[in-house]
């Protein structure tokens, strides 16, 4: 019994480092010795104890994650990449076979697609104007519309009730019935859309190279940033810090936040135009593909390249699954790479050929072992074992959400909305000490105060001295005194008239005294006399 417990303890101990929050600087016994304030020492010790316990308990609670991800495994000389979807279909269970399907929509292709955050719903947009959203698990169609103009990208908003579509000129927001809810006139000729679910920000970038952030909860246009790098066709969000990664035609990838007019980071990734960008959900790795035929994998903590591969034809679409599988769409092929970020892979994990088509967009379905690909002949779904996270947090994203739960989740997410000002490279910065130099802080404070003072001067209501400077008087004042012309005479006359009229008015008021007043009859006349 104790042995078992020991084993459990050991396994838990292995997991603990994963849950210990990183900090700068050490606080060991040496540092503790230096602290003279006993109260502070006690406090710090308590904090350490609590954080240690929290990590320990979190590691222990991993026991509750009952599901384990599984991958394709083959025996002997067989290779996983030789296994086709047909073979898989023959061998997987009945329920999983439904995940392999082909929607033949040859008239409106190529298609772009998007899954909701819980992986339940799918929206597809054909370039020639076909938009459709459906519950792909339950095989229920939500809406299907034909907009009769170019559709460049589709994106779900915070839940399956709304989706945004980048059309020929503007971006439109449709509801689940396909009703046009908004037309975002400021987003012009958009190529790519991204939605930040915690900030309720819809980001768009297009031909003009403007990155625009629109708050979908308040409707405000939060930021309009000019990239100055021309047409942009590749965009990805970093789910860890909500930074936008844009791939440009000069081979650079720029990292943007709505709080800065210039890119936070600019990386030279390729020698040709960047075709696609993808960021993994831990925010550690990025994959880029360029027209120069390279597929590069980056560590975005250090901005250093990890691996580079050469593609026979440039990859048109990249995506990274929840468990870190890298999907690459190129030509009619989709190739899945496992553990690609950890070490150089000699062979892919899986292969798929959508014969006779061009793959436009690929997306892994969250919480499911499926991959959706939009191509010139429609939309297909294939099974990629081990791509989706098997243990789901129903408070975060629940594929089995009921209507009531969805409503509640919506309210909660709105209450917990993160402000756009919090988008920086390191999202743990909140509450930390400002590390700018004292001179700089002083200067900023001074500037602030000055600005405030200036602002206050404006706010004080001016004594406007009504009547003193009418336009006529002003004219007379500004004109040279000794020059008397016709206009001046006329104005003088007008002024005189006005004065007369004013005088008369006051006189009239005085005359009014004799007029009987309504309540006068009740007053004592004798006393008055």
């Amino acid at each position, binding site marked *: 019994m104790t042995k078992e417990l020991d084993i459990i303890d050991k396994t838990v101990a292995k997991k603990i480092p994963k849950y210990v*929050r990183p*900090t*700068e*600087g050490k606080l060991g016994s040496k540092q503790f010795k230096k602290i003279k*304030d006993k109260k*502070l020492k*006690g406090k*710090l010790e*308590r*904090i*350490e104890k*609590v*954080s240690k*316990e*929290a990590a320990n*308990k*979190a590691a222990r609670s991993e026991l509750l994650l009952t599901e384990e991800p599984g991958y394709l495994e083959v*025996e*002997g*000389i*067989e290779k996983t990449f030789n296994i086709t979807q047909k073979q898989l279909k023959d061998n997987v269970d009945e329920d999983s076979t439904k995940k392999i399907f082909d929607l033949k929509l040859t008239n409106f292709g190529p298609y772009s697609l998007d899954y909701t955050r819980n992986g339940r719903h799918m929206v597809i947009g054909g370039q020639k104007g076909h938009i459709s959203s459906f519950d792909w698990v339950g095989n229920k169609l939500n809406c299907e519309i034909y907009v009769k103009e170019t559709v460049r990208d589709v994106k779900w908003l915070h839940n399956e009730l709304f989706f945004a579509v980048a059309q020929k000129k503007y971006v439109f927001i449709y509801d689940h019935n396909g009703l046009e809810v908004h037309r975002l006139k400021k987003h012009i000729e958009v190529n790519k859309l991204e939605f930040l679910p915690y900030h309720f920000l819809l980001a768009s970038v297009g031909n003009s190279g403007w990155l625009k952030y629109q708050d979908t909860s308040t409707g405000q246009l939060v930021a309009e940033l000019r990239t100055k790098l021309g047409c942009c066709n590749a965009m990805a969000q970093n789910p860890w810090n909500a930074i936008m990664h844009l791939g440009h035609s*000069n*081979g650079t990838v720029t990292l943007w*936040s709505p*709080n*800065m007019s*210039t*890119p*936070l*980071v*600019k*990386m*030279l990734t390729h*020698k*040709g135009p960047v075709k696609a960008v993808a960021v993994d959900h831990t925010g550690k790795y990025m994959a880029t593909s360029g027209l*120069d035929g390279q*597929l590069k994998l980056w560590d975005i903590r250090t*901005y250093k390249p990890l691996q580079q*591969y*050469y593609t*026979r034809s440039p990859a048109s679409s990249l995506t990274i699954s929840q468990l870190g599988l890298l999907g690459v769409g190129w030509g009619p092929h989709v*190739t899945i790479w496992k553990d690609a970020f950890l070490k150089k892979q*000699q*062979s*892919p994990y899986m292969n798929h*050929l959508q014969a006779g088509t061009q793959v436009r967009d690929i997306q892994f379905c969250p919480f499911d072992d499926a991959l959706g690909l939009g191509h010139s002949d429609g939309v297909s779904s294939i099974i990629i074992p081990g791509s989706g996270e098997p243990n789901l947090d129903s*408070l975060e994203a629940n594929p089995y959400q009921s209507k009531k739960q969805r409503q509640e989740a919506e309210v909660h997410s709105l209450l917990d909305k993160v402000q756009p*000002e*919090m988008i*920086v490279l390191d999202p743990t*910065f*909140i*509450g*930390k*000490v*400002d*590390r700018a*130099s004292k001179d*700089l802080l002083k*200067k900023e404070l001074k500037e602030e105060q000055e600005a405030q003072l200036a602002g206050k001067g404006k706010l004080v209501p001016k004594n406007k001295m009504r009547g003193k400077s009418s336009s006529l008087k002003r004219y007379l004042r500004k004109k040279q005194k000794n020059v008397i012309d016709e206009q001046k005479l006329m104005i003088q006359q007008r002024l005189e008239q006005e004065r007369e009229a004013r005088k008369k008015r006051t006189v009239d008021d005085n005359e009014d005294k004799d007029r009987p007043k309504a309540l006068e009859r009740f007053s004592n006349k004798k006393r008055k006399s």
Partner: protein
Amino acid sequence: MDEEVKALLEEDNDVQEVNDETKSDNLASFIGSLDKKRKRTVYEDINSLDKPKKQLKEHAEVFEESEYNLTTRESPNVKKKVDLQDLIGSIQEETGFSKLKQKLVSLESGGNKGTYQEPLPAPLPTRIQDKLNRQAAYEETKKDITKWEPIVKQNREADHLKFPMNDQPSHNPTNNVLAATFQPSTELEKKVDSILVESGVKEKSLQQYEELQMSKLSVEEVENRVKELRKMRELVFREEIKARRIAKIKSKAYRKIRKKEKEKNKLDLKQLAELDPKLAREEQLILEATRAQERMTLRHKNTSKWAKQALKHGRHDPESRQAIVEQLQRHEELKRKIHDLETDEELSDFTSENSDDEKDDDINAIKEKAFDELAQLDQKEAAQEEEMKGLFGMKFMHDAMERDKNRTRGIIDDFVEDLENEKFNEENTKKDENKEAKKSTIVHVGNNIGRMIFGAGSKKSVSEHEINIKKLSKSTFEPKSSLEDISEKSKIDSTSSIPAESMKINYSLETNSEEEVNPWLQIDSSKIISSSKKNNKGIVKENNKSDKIVSKLKKQKDKDKSQDGIEIDVSKVLTISSAQITGATNSDEKSENDSETFDVETNFVHVKNPTAFSQRELVARAFANDNVVEEFEKEKQAIIEEDEPKEQDLTLPGWARVKKHKKKKLILAKPLPGGIEASKRKDAKLDHVIINEKRVKKAKKYLATNIPHPFETREQYERSLRTPLGTEWNTQEVFHKMITPRIITKMGTVIDPLNVPFQTNDLDDK
């Protein structure tokens, strides 16, 4: 005395700054006067000593002389003050008045006999007195307060404090407590209670009854009873201890002696028969039964746990070896007993008392049982043979056992034969009708006409046969297990293993086609094509090869089929594999660059291999004109320069240019806040990256400008922030622990002061 007061006062003055000037003045004058007085007296004394006596002036008395008006004034030579001595001096001289004299003495010495005490000093000023009191009180209370220190410390260090602190948890009374304090309250309860009382089943009444009974006995009787009980208890206890001690003895010799002793002590059966024939018979029966049981349960064989252990470990131990030998002897003995059942005199004597029929039945039953047992034994042996492992599994052991077994088998056979003969004879004499029927059950043993087995023995022979077969299989067919495995597997897999089989075939195919180019190696496109062509040829060839293999496999399978009668649907396998193969060939025929070459083409090629780069070179050439890298470098340089710290130019036009000023060191520039040097930039070592070093002004409001109070360094503070508090990032338990307030009060309860955790004698006294 004066000095003390003075010192105190001075101290007082020192300590307390009395602002009141007049007061201090008064004090000073008072002290001065005190000094003066003293000085004067001393001075006068000296004067009186040194100077010649002066003529005393005549004092004019102002007052009238009378006995009530005596002057108290003193002068150096005249002591005017009336003393007690003056008054009672005369009495001393006279006799008598002894009592009065005593009283006077005591009065003179101030109450106490013989010792003189000074009169009480004047009390200290109240202010000083109070101060002293306060000091003393402070010391006292300090002592008391220090007693609280540990508990205060504990409470200070506690994570949470819950008030009311000394709240005692409400405890649930146990059943016993409830029963003891139970009072019937409702009607029903009262009724039940009354019934219980009436019938006298109440525990209390029972107890009382017992007590009454005891009270009826005389004192002596009770005493005797108690004594007896005590004695009994004592004896039992002793016996118990003794038994425990004996049970602990491990010596085998001792055990043997003890056993013998026991047997010796036992009455012999004969003796018993003389004394009590009935008991003797019963004993006899019991003995018989146990013996039979023993025989049946093979106690005498080497199958018991002990025997196994002894055989395993005790072969080198002479004692245990002897024990084994003994056991074997016993075994022999028992067998002999069965064998000579008829001739056994004792038994026959004993059984002669019973009727003949009964005797016959008994014997028959025993015989049959014995046969059954033998059969079982054989089976068991057969089973054991397979199970043997370790030392017994070794060859020499096997051989030895085999020899042993043969010998015993011989014995058994003899025994069986004898028994059968006996039976046969009996049956011959009794019933001849069954003879023919019995003959059919006769079985020849091992092709030996001379040896026959009858009846139940035939079964056994069958089993023996089986064993023989098994042995044969073991000895001759080494691959017996494999054969069996095959048969078993084929049975199981006949339906489900088709894909597996096909996989196997595939596997073999693949092994053959290993010369095929690994698709993950880099090859020039031209090469690829050529290789693919080659491959195609190879595949065709391999197809032939594979056909051969398949046919071979088929043959083999057929053979297996004929051998074991296994049903395998080879045709299915064949169809699948052939279909695959045909598909492959078809596609080959269709297009050379398709399917097979597809793998090669479809996958990415590694950068590092230098052979395959014609395409890459092409691409590189395609982008050669876009001097992207230079542009990027230029941009980075511009940004670095822009971000470098700037200086404010303090020169005034015309001023610093003047020659005489040049000699002095003038501050012409002041560094402006902000900016970053090129070497300190985050991207200093990353050529391909530009990291923006500008401050994010909008995020400034989420930063702390200073380190908050209790923390001394930034690290400490930021460390305190690092563990998030929310439920999203913590387990429920930790979350609740983190957010519990330090002080919890229960609403509506009075919060009493702390209980005194130590003895409070001093406080109570006060």
